[in-house]
């Protein structure tokens, strides 16, 4: 691979793998599954080239566990899977949220439920990404709509994971993962990288789960002289199990606070033509491509259409959507599922304003379908 920025034809899955390398990913563990396998294949070759480590585990549960273990050792770490694997990973994603261990989980969505149709696209895992792991916890989920964006958001996923000590789920879909596009990747100097918060306090003072003053306490790697305990049980500031409710609630408040206080950094989206819009389209992932096309078509026909392309799905950009839809009575939400982000949009702006365009048969939503929804309503 050359490091010079030059245009090349690249697949979404490969862009994800290259994004991981660019972000400083040192460890990948995964289990083959269509349409995510290519990410593992590229990283099996690329990671050792840059001194990193790759392992194919015995299943997805082991993969996410190994990723968390590597992150505890100080590595930036990632796994990649599709819906069936995401289901298997959920318990340990909750463990990462509970123990505040940074990690990146890529889910290249395919048509479900169950084995579904492995080579067909879907956006059916949006809610699973948010609520799949049991118990209350915040999560960050990002969703690219092009090959270049896949690269950028993979880097961003690592940055968010490290910065906020949280699992980050990157939701690709089969179209984005398998699509080839001409891309120019940024040079290493152009890429902003962050490291997890760390400390120089003497080890005996170190509190890996301190609630104040920072919302994100430093995380020291195992093997560096900071000996402490990590557990999926509710724990005190030192990481030791606790049964005290007055220690549980402040912790829970903090893990939500650390995300909520940083919404301005975390919420990524593209907004276009919102000011004069009569109708607003809210879309994400591959569907955002159809939507963009439909928006252009509708504008050519003289319609005032605003477009909000979401890149951050979780936390849901409530205020962004509320603001964009404030003056409007018509919001179209197309997605390759039976209505998942639409539920959030409806929650924020009210059900009667929302027109859903759904498709969960393994085919992409056509621009014509979105256009029809715009026209029908106008």
């Amino acid at each position, binding site marked *: 691979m050359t490091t010079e920025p030059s245009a090349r034809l690249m697949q979404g899955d490969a862009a994800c793998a290259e994004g991981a390398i660019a972000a400083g990913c040192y*460890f990948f563990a995964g289990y083959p599954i269509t349409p995510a396998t290519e990410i593992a294949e590229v990283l099996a070759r690329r990671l050792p080239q840059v001194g990193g480590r790759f392992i194919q585990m015995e299943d997805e549960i*082991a993969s996410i566990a190994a990723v968390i273990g*590597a992150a505890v050792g100080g590595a930036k770490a990632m796994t990649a899977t599709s819906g069936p694997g995401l289901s298997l990973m959920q318990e340990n994603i909750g463990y990462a949220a509970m123990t505040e261990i940074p990690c990146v989980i890529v889910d290249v969505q395919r048509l479900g439920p169950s084995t579904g149709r492995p080579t067909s696209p879907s956006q059916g895992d949006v809610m699973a990404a948010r609520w799949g792991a049991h118990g209350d916890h915040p999560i960050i989920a990002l969703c690219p709509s092009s090959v270049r964006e896949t690269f950028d958001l993979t880097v961003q996923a690592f940055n968010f994971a490290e910065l906020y000590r949280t699992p980050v789920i990157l939701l690709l879909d089969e179209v984005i993962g398998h699509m080839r596009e001409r891309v120019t990747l940024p040079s290493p100097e152009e890429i902003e990288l962050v490291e997890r918060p760390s400390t120089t306090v003497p080890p005996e003072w170190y509190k890996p789960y301190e609630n104040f003053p920072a919302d994100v306490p430093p995380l020291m790697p195992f093997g560096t002289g900071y000996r402490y305990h990590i557990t999926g049980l509710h724990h005190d500031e030192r990481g030791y199990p606790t049964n005290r409710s007055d220690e549980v609630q402040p912790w829970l408040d903090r893990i939500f606070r650390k995300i909520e206080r940083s919404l301005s950094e975390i919420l990524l989206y593209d907004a276009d033509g919102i000011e004069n819009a009569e109708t607003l389209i809210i879309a994400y992932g591959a569907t955002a491509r159809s939507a963009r096309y439909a928006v252009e078509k509708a504008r050519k026909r003289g319609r005032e259409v605003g477009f909000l392309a979401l890149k951050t799905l979780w936390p849901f950009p409530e205020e962004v959507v509320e603001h964009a839809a404030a003056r409007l009575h018509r919001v179209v939400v197309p997605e390759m599922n039976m209505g998942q982000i639409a539920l959030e949009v409806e929650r924020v702006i009210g059900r009667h304003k929302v027109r859903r365009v759904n498709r969960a048969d393994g085919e992409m939503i056509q621009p014509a379908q979105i256009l029809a929804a715009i026209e029908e309503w106008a």
Partner: protein
Amino acid sequence: MTTKQPFNKVKTPRESRVHERYLRHSKKFPNVWCAGCGIGIVMGSIIRAIDDLQLDKNDIAMISGIGCTGRMPVYVDFNTMHTTHGRALAFATGLKMVRPEMKIIVVMGDGDALAIGGNHFIHAARRNIGLTTIVVNNTTYGMTGGQYSPTTPTDAIASTAPYGHIEQPFPIAELAAVSGAAFVARSTVYHVRELEKYIAQAIEKEGFTVVEAVSYCHTTLGRINRWGTAPDMMRRLKEQSVTRRQADGMSEEEKQGLIVRGVFVDRAVPEYTQLYDHIIERAEAEVA
């Protein structure tokens, strides 16, 4: 047992209460184990083995899954992680990949290691990744209250086998051996000095190493089956176990129901993270 050869590397008489130097004192931890439980004996054995090997606490990680055995790491002053049920070896695999210089000890109950974690157990052994696995085999699910586990003896009564257990138990040491582990030994919580010795050997040895520490759970499976008090069950471990050498002279019938103690495997197999270093060399050469 006390008449056996001392194995200590440190030849001076052992200080009493050596474990005090290895336990955490930063919080008053409640003892989660029942009085008379064997898990504490295994913890003591691990600590003494580490002390004998004179390892630096900073270089040791203890990783567990869920269960009574899974509660062990919180007490010891190492890098410790209490993970999810059955997954400790997978977590440990990731840590070992990025911190190959660390001595990683994985402690699990028999349910943790062989039921929910059985797949990880055989694959970690097959890979021969440098982890020391201590399975506390109390032949039941202690924490959840005496349900049958993958090592519960056939015909025993368990809380989920009220009419008798109809499955056959896994022989843990033999399973580890055929799966590819570099070192495999079995002892019991009665034979503490022997257990300590095997644990020290397992920690020192490169590759995937397994020590099965046969224990008991007098408060659940023991109570249900009327096997007596903790001392009674401890006595059973003494009376119903034989060394490998003794077992060699016995017929299959005579060996029925006996615990065979000893080292089952001690072989040189290339360790996984060391092999991976060669992968890195090859990959770096390819791009150079």
